[in-house]
């Protein structure tokens, strides 16, 4: 980063410092916003995977479809942004219930069929988006307009709002997992499903709640992403890879690991493209993750998968 700044020999040191500070603030904001999106979308995947061992490869597509549906309500139908967000979240929570009952529950413990079902859901969602909304790039109108200016520095309000919303949701999810009865039952199932069932916990009820919650969180992340960046029909594919990296780094069975590793991934993907030109930045990010996994193959917070 300094190389970019210092290559301009005509600039004064103070001028360079202001620019370095501005880049730092922007990068920090980018990292936090990215982390919030990654964590929100990954939590849903992690809930199902950790609790029931369901490997939902369609989670990225669910996130993409929610973004497009958000666009349909907010931009095309002119519904207020916040109301549109709530409608999509409710609809996707319903989708989560449906998927759990008909697509996930019958295939618990059957990895091959889970993948096949996931691929089918991806195809259905991507095709539906293409037919109903079209395969064009869209952007959802910003939730909060304007730019916060503080001296020489400026940050768009929508980024601050996205981070704020993400942060509030995370706190609510953490409280739900740690303090609520359903959350504690989730943790019990994660630790030992059979043991939890023997204690009278209704596994199907909890997995339905978790699936609805996961899809709702993915919907929020998809709409935030569509508002901050661009919607495209294949945005779920790249996101799925980031979800998998995050889950592996966090370690199987860990919810708090998802949050810490989301922050790490956000920092990596916000910083590396600044330092490294072009596609090499992606390769370096994955290489760093590979090195981390060589040191801690079980991830940072979970247990090793046998």
């Amino acid at each position: 980063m300094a190389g970019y700044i210092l290559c301009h020999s005509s600039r004064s040191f103070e001028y360079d410092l202001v620019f370095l500070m501005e880049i730092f603030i922007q990068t920090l904001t980018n990292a936090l916003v990215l982390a919030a999106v990654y964590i929100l979308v990954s939590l849903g995947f992690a809930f199902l995977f950790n609790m029931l061992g369901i490997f939902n490869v369609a989670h990225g597509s669910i996130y993409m479809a929610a973004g497009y549906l958000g666009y349909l309500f907010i931009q095309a139908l002119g519904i207020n942004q916040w109301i549109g967000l709530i409608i999509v979240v409710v609809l996707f929570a319903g989708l989560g219930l449906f998927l759990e009952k008909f697509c996930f529950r019958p295939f618990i413990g059957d990895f091959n069929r889970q993948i096949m079902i996931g691929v089918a859901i991806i195809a259905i969602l991507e095709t539906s988006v293409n037919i109903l909304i079209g395969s064009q790039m869209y952007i959802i109108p910003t939730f909060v307009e304007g730019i916060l200016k503080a001296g020489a520095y400026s940050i768009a309000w929508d980024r601050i709002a996205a981070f704020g919303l993400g942060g509030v949701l995370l706190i609510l999810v953490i409280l739900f997992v740690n303090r609520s009865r359903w959350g504690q039952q989730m943790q019990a199932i994660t630790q030992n499903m059979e043991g939890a069932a023997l204690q009278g916990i209704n596994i199907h009820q909890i997995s339905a709640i978790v699936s609805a919650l996961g899809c709702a969180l993915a919907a929020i992340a998809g709409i935030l992403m569509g508002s901050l960046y661009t919607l495209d029909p294949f945005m779920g594919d790249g996101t799925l890879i980031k979800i998998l990296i995050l889950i592996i780094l966090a370690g199987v069975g860990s919810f708090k690991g998802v949050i810490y590793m989301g922050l790490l991934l956000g920092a990596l993907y916000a910083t590396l493209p600044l330092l490294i030109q072009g596609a090499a930045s992606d390769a370096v990010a994955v290489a760093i993750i590979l090195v981390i996994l060589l040191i801690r193959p079980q991830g940072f917070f979970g247990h090793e998968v046998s």
Partner: protein
Amino acid sequence: MKKYLLVALVLILISTMIFSGCSKETAAPQTLKIGVLADLSGFLSVFYLEATHDMQLTADYINEKGGVTIDGKKYNIELVIRDSKSSPDGALAGANQLIFQDQVKYVIGPIAFEGAATTPLFEQNKVLHIFNSTTTSRLEMGPDWPYAFTADDSALDFSTVEFKIGQKEFPNAKTCVMILPDDGTEPYLMPSVIPILQSMGYTILNDGKAILYPNDMQDFSPIVSKLNSLNPDIMFQPEAAPPAVYGILKGMRAVGNDAVYIATLFPGDPNNVIAAVGAEAATNFACLNYTKDDPGYPQILKDLITKLSPNAPFFTFTLGNCLMVLTNVMKAANSLDVDKIKTKWESMDTIEGVYGKGTVGGEKTFGARHSVTWPEPYNKFMNGQIFKNLPWINPGPTP
């Protein structure tokens, strides 16, 4: 005797009728198979699904107008379309199918960055292949590849058009940066564009290097941070998919930077820009793209636009133009022989296409006259307002 004569006459009459029927059959149009390698899946499919559809419209249009007449024989075009899957290995697989399974001798596509994978295969098998976009890399086209052509403006031609737009519309801009996807274009393009920029009085920031981003990047915030730190007066992006342009434009305005931004934005109904980035961000921006109602279009393009579905989100005849150019060179060569078509193309000064009359060039850039360039339409955005259908800018022949 008379009876036998009568029978013989009837037989002669019948056989004459049968043979005349046969000759009518032989006069029916034959099929001319032309291969197409387009990204029907993957991140580029957003563009190429529509481009392929519009190419089919062009083929239908040519067929409706009587097809392609070569040496007195009429041919109807049949497109054989294979998916290049937005990746070099996908393109190579598609090229294999087109050559060995479909037995085509002419192929339109793939897109520039997939060309390094497909060009050697096409050349080994003497398949005439036409890019609709090139990075000017010698891996795609050049003296070593006699059957590689391009029938649409290259990244170099788009750059020239963008620099001319910059001078015309934003004459006060003096410092500039180039932005490119990391698809191998930079090492070939930058040495060509730097002298042009310098001759126009621009100072190139970032030590004359382009700002590169991964082809499939979604979050452009780090690129925006880089650009904002360089603080150019004007940014040129001669090769881009719409998500990159929208991401950079919206991102720059979000950090309060109003630098002029000129980018290719194919496909394009410029109204999409406002929908994508918001009216507030759509300022100091110019993009190369087409509108449905440009009065400056040649008649062929006007005819083709009438065939588009009113619900089509956008149109792009970039592949259709390649097809039109190929068939016109075939007609001029009066042959379907690949070598004769190649020789004829190299000898022509202009070729008719969907966009009107294209200029043949490319001796310096590609080592042979294998390129055709076209004037480009553009649209300007100031304070959320669109200025459409501005006079087209001609890049001139590829050097």
